[in-house]
């Protein structure tokens, strides 16, 4: 009994304290070092912050270069898949175009009227300068959905700025470095934004699922949310401007949950718009 305990202690000691050939530090030393790193990092210790910023600038660029071959494969895979779906896509697009043409006639009038009314209630927001940013890396763990873009504080990017893919909302800036920033996607588990579901005007919160979709959190008029309903930002809490299209409800699943299919495909992002909305002071 005594011998087996001794053996265990010897094996553990050898594993954690012994330096191997060409090893400068023991395992225990490095483990202690990473714990110190972790603790000081969480306490926002200045020196650690500088180290973090340095590492981030190097890693984001290297990650972009190293992801090159995989991105090439990915692009080709998608290209081939798109070719196979071409006929189907064209047919769907034809139908959609016909319906959009008729809607477009009304659109301009409604936009002008909406602007006028928003000015009356002092809720008219205009875009700040838009920064077009290239997606450096869309790598995330299975648990985190975020992208890295090649614009940072040097390009006047600030925390909380809105990130859009065309007219659709993608996420918001959660980390700003000198030459790069991290964008938390709407699909991330930690993303929660106030939305409005139309028709029926249901106010709720859209949460990410960690997958490709989002989910509408339970609210009072939950049952009023129908399939194909469109989700817009509600503008509540001044996080985002009201009325940015986000996605639509897809109820083709067995669960009771209201699953949201985003309009933008987050795995296909190449360039995004980073902007913020400010109140229009001019009359």
């Amino acid at each position, binding site marked *: 009994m005594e011998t087996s305990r001794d053996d265990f202690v010897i094996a553990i000691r050898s594993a954690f304290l012994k330096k191997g050939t060409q090893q400068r530090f023991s395992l225990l030393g490095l483990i202690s070092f990473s714990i110190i*790193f972790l603790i000081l990092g969480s306490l926002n210790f200045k020196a650690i912050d500088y180290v973090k910023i340095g590492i981030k600038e190097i890693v984001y660029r290297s990650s972009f270069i190293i992801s090159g071959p995989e991105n090439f494969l990915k692009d080709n895979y998608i290209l081939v898949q798109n070719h196979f779906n071409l006929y189907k896509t064209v047919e769907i697009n034809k139908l959609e175009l016909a319906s959009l043409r008729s809607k477009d006639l009304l659109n301009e009038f409604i936009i002008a009227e909406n602007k006028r009314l928003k000015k009356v209630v002092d809720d008219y927001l205009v875009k700040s300068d838009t920064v077009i940013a290239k997606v450096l890396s869309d790598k995330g763990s299975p648990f985190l959905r975020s992208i890295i873009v090649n614009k940072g504080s040097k390009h006047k990017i600030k925390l909380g700025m809105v990130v859009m893919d065309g007219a659709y909302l993608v996420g918001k800036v959660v980390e700003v470095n000198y030459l790069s920033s991290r964008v938390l996607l709407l699909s991330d*588990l930690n993303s929660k934004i106030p939305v409005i579901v139309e028709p029926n005007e249901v106010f709720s919160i859209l949460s990410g699922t960690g997958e490709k979709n989002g989910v509408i959190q339970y609210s009072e008029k939950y049952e009023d949310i129908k399939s194909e309903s469109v989700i817009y930002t509600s503008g509540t809490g001044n996080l985002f401007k009201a009325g940015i299209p986000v996605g639509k409800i897809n109820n083709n699943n067995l669960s009771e949950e209201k699953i949201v299919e985003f309009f933008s495909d987050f795995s296909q992002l190449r360039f995004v718009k980073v902007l913020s909305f400010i109140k229009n002071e001019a009359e």
Partner: protein
Amino acid sequence: MTELKNKNIIKKILSSIPLILLFISVLNNYDFNYLGLKYFSFNFSYILIFYYSLKKSESLGYTYIFVAGLFNDVVLGTPIGISSLMYLILCGAAAYLRNITLRPSLIKDCIFFLLTILIINSLLFIILNLIFDYELDYFDQIINITYTFLFYFLFSNLFDFFERYIVGSKNAR
């Protein structure tokens, strides 16, 4: 003389391939998202670190593993130092197994690997969820652990093949 020198250079490059692979895997983070597979994810770095710490500890230095962990945290956006900690615990477990093993067998290695990644992921979950307030999904973790475990069989054999027939080392097994 020149031929001997060339051979040495090639051998050096070949022996540093695990290290290169480690850095590529942390910087690239193979996710295969574009395949649209919902229930698929695995952690290649865990497999690589465990295998080489167990079979050929001189290939990956602890310091490099520590740095790779820092890089991984930056790419994933997790608190800096957490991946290094997990990688080093994995190294410690592999070193312990190496010390107590008299007759190596793949099955035993795999079971030990499974136990280690279960502990590591639980620790990761506790730290991220309770201390840093990250919301994580149990199911994603289980999927990740399962595939990482299953892929250990495949990659272990691939690395064995690489070490024995391409690098030509004798102590890989």
